[in-house]
């Protein structure tokens, strides 16, 4: 078995010295979708922030493709193949759809491939095509989520970090976006680490599920089994 693309061992991290993640272990194999679920405050967003270096890591290791990731400057992550779609999507509302997408690949040397990747995103998320010239603040929630994911994809990342894509979206829109994402992964071998409060939606596309509670991993199994485990759901996910 090959080593996972992203391997997290004994990760303890937090804000200003107060840890919110304790001894987290996580494997994300290449080409898979791993979903981290948990209630509000479980540390899901903090986990992604720790991976991106926007909160302090006090112990443990994050191994990315065989080398240590922590200490990498946030702005260099995307150059190492990691794209992050933060909670609330992070669409730059003052810029147009086209500009947001251009920003996604502006650092790349291969301009032609950047444009090709942009065309692929328009083909993947068709509603964005007629919104090309609209400013970010004019978009619906679903369109913003499509734009945020699309902007991450034009960088041609190997790993996509996705924070609560279902937040504030109609279930139908969420399902549509998730299905498109699953297809993209199957077609291109993209790896996704998804954090979600919406367990059903997350497990519907994930290969592997991880349950986080109060900053600790309390379960890690196939997505199918995590989704079907009623005890787990009652105990940690509150429904």
């Amino acid at each position: 078995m090959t080593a996972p693309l992203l391997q997290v061992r004994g990760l303890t991290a937090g804000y200003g010295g107060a840890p919110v993640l304790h001894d987290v272990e996580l494997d994300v194999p290449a080409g898979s979708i791993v979903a981290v679920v948990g209630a509000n405050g479980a540390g899901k967003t903090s986990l992604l922030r720790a991976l991106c270096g926007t909160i302090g890591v006090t112990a443990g290791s994050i191994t990315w493709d065989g080398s240590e990731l922590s200490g990498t400057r946030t702005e260099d992550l995307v150059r190492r193949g990691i794209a992050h779609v933060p909670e609330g999507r992070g669409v730059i509302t003052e810029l147009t759809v086209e500009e947001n997408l251009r920003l996604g690949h502006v650092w790349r040397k291969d301009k032609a491939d950047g444009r090709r990747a942009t065309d692929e995103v328009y083909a993947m998320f068709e509603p964005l095509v007629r919104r090309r010239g609209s400013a970010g603040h004019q978009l619906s929630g679903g369109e913003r989520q499509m734009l945020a994911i699309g902007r991450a994809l034009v960088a041609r990342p190997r790993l996509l970090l996705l924070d609560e894509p279902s937040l504030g979206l109609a279930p139908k829109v969420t399902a549509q976006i998730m299905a498109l994402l699953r297809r993209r992964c199957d077609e291109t071998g993209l790896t996704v680490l998804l954090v979600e409060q919406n367990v059903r939606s997350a497990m519907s596309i994930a290969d592997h599920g991880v349950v986080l509670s109060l900053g600790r991993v309390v379960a890690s199994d196939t997505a199918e089994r995590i989704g079907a485990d009623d005890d787990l759901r009652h105990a940690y996910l509150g429904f």
Partner: protein
Amino acid sequence: MDRFLFLTVDGLARGATFAAFALALVLIWRGARLVNFSQGAMAAATTYVAYSVTTASGSYWLGLVAAVVAGLVIGAGTERLLMRHVDASQPLNTVIVALGLVLVIQAVLGILYGSEYRPMDVPFSRTPLSIGDQPLLSPYDLFVLGTVVAVMAALGWAFTRTDLGLTMRAAAFAPDMARLLGVDVRRMLTLSWGVAGAVGALAALLIVPTELGAHPHATDLVFVYAFTAAVVGGLDSPVGAVVGGLGVGLVLSYVSGYSGSDISAVVILGVLVAVLLLKPSGLLGHTSARVV
């Protein structure tokens, strides 16, 4: 009516320089959320650079280039060496440092050049050209207007059409997100300060020679007018800075034309207060509320 027309075009010509200066303030505000109170003093310093270079070389144009380059260096250097190291968690900190910088720059200029005005020449005649019997703009006014329009157009093009401009805007609007997209936000901020310094230097050099000349305090009033223009237009909005600058130029021209220049500064202060009371986000600004 003739007088009104003359005052209008004269006001627009002066307003163009305020607009450029206001644009420099907007550039830094958008990137750093700081009103650069030292912009005026920096521009006073670059005006002396132009004065010295022009005096030594005999060329106005060399002086102009030197001033713009000096503005770029002083602006970028201020961000890189000073502002970056100020704890910006309290907005007042950077404001106080900027105000301190004003005192330091003006004191140094006073030591180097003394406190007498140094008259400066302009490259074109300042005698208004007439159309029929109607005196309108002078060749120098046309030069000023043309230069400002060209600079604005170039900046507008750079910000909307180039990759660098796009990343600078992204870094200003959403620094955290920009970082995740691979933008070196700090470098963009340094660059914004540099561009602002250069634009401020140019604006000051266009206006100072039409007054008493280079002086450590020569740009104090220009700063007040430009600050008013930026606030009127909305500190967030480059277009607002231009509209505000032209508006301030017109108001100044009408007030000094019809009732004497002694009260023009007071009137501008009144405009500033009125905008802050009635529409604090400015005419074209987006800022409605800010958590501080």
